């Protein structure tokens, strides 16, 4: 009944996804970004993460094959109960941010 108890980890859906890992200081929760190679909001988000020297992993979903894209979409839907929009930042498996509003990201991830 209480969310966390019923929530199944969906991490296995992402097993085959070739993430690029960026080293840095560890955030409280592991950070994963789903992005598109073509999107401006995604570019700004990734630049922000790089500048903040935080550890995260990302993948350009448009560069993945169809089954892998479906796996990412299913992962987001099952874990966060929302549709995938880009960029999509997973904060552990409990929280997420979409789009890129600098103030929200700074608040969520710390200033830097």
């Amino acid at each position, binding site marked *: *009944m*209480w*969310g966390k108890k019923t929530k199944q980890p969906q991490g296995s859906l992402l097993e085959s996804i070739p993430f690029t890992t960026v080293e840095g200081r560890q955030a409280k929760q592991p950070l994963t970004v789903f992005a*598109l190679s*073509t*999107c*401006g*909001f*995604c570019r700004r988000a990734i630049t922000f993460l790089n500048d903040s020297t935080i550890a995260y992993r990302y993948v350009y979903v*448009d560069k993945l094959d169809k089954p892998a894209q479906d796996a990412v979409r299913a992962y987001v*839907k099952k874990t966060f*109960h*929302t*549709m*995938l*929009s*880009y960029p999509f930042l997973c904060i552990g498996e409990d929280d997420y941010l*979409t*789009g*890129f*509003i*600098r*103030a*929200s990201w700074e608040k969520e991830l710390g200033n830097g």
Partner: protein
Amino acid sequence: MKKTIRTKHRVPMLVAALLLTITSTLGAQELPLLLQERYIMAHIGFQRQYATSYEYPDDISLGYTIFNGEFPVVIHAEGPELSLYSGSPLFIPAFLSGGTTNQIGYIDAYSNYTPIALLSLGWRHDLLKTGNLANDGFFASWGWRAGILSGGLGYHFAHERPVGYLGVSLDNLGISLSASPVNLKATLTYRTEKSWSISTSAEVDEHGRASFGIGFGLSRKDYAAESIFTDDWSLSVAHRGSLLHAPENTNAAFEWALEQPRYVAIETDIQLTADGKFLLIHDPILLRYSHGFDMVGDMTSEQLKSLDMGSWFSPDFAGTQVLDLAQLGEISNANPDVYWLLELKNLVWTREEAKRFLAEIDEEFDHPEKIGFYTVTLEMMELMQSLTDRPVGIQLDTVKMMFYYSDHLMPLVKAEYRPLVRNADFFTLLSSKFDRQEQLIELSEELGIPVMLWNFHDVIAGYIPKDLRHYPLGMPKMLDGALLKE
């Protein structure tokens, strides 16, 4: 002299309310599949009376609140009172006086709810017959919000007293002050990241008697409403470009929408300015964009274009300008695959204004066949239909005020809708008024036109009748002349 309350029903009532509160709040995470856009919160409070002759003694209060779309319903059991409110969450705290201790959760409502000014109506019942008139009867209020400030004025008819309220809500902290001829009350609420909250309050009545309270609360916000839609709702339209990721109806919002692969169409809003220009702006009043109470229709396009339409959303977007029709044309021309739905926000235009609008569209857009319109009045729909072969839909919420309907009322609702949408190419509704997607799907199939549901999120979700699925957006007219003439 201290009055005592007949407490025969008091303990069972409090226990029942407590159980209801706890179970339903804990269950709230399971509810989103059934409900949409709801915000559920509960609180329990304790109060110590320092007054010597207050109407009721040390107290426990319980509250249970559902904010449902635009029309929040608040059920509030508190000591000897049972209260029922509907309307703006902004002003409710002002009436929680006369022994009330806390207002847990309203801080969430402040930050998560869009209404900036709304009428509230309420009713309180003196459940335990304490004889306290203040606990009985109707009240009405008007509340508003501007940035972090909120306030309101109201009147309690039974008690014949006015009430005023002022509040400040920061990210995790809410401070409020309410005053009436019989009391003055201050409340401080703190909410953690994870929905727990604590509040304290202090109150003085007209005889200088004080009371102090402390409360704990729990609130739950539903998942994004989009997650409730079944796969039947296959059409995804970007609402005002974006509501959540960039200031609505601006370049940044359209940039966002154009980058999201899921959208085939973008929705935006058109208003006519005092100097006869067509600008992309949603609200008729500039208040939400932090530019006071000026009306769009009274201002020139030059005045409107000089305004910063981004800072109200986030400092990231400071300096963003409102767009006009020609600028939208440029965006459309650069993205020829994208369909556009233009909501005409004015109640009615003259025939000349509508003609000029359509002429400007033809002039500025390389692909006017990618554009559909929808209107907020039947008169405007008929006007547009008489001037263009493009699709013209209707925004039903503004034509017919609809509330929540239960299953057995749905046939009646459908009977009322049918004549209104008969001539439309599609119709739109606020989704939080409808938990019954399957009923709307039935109606859409019956009428043979798409239905689109909007809410305070990024996505307008559309259902396209089966026979129309091979047409863009489910609208044959989107294919324009060639096909229609066949």
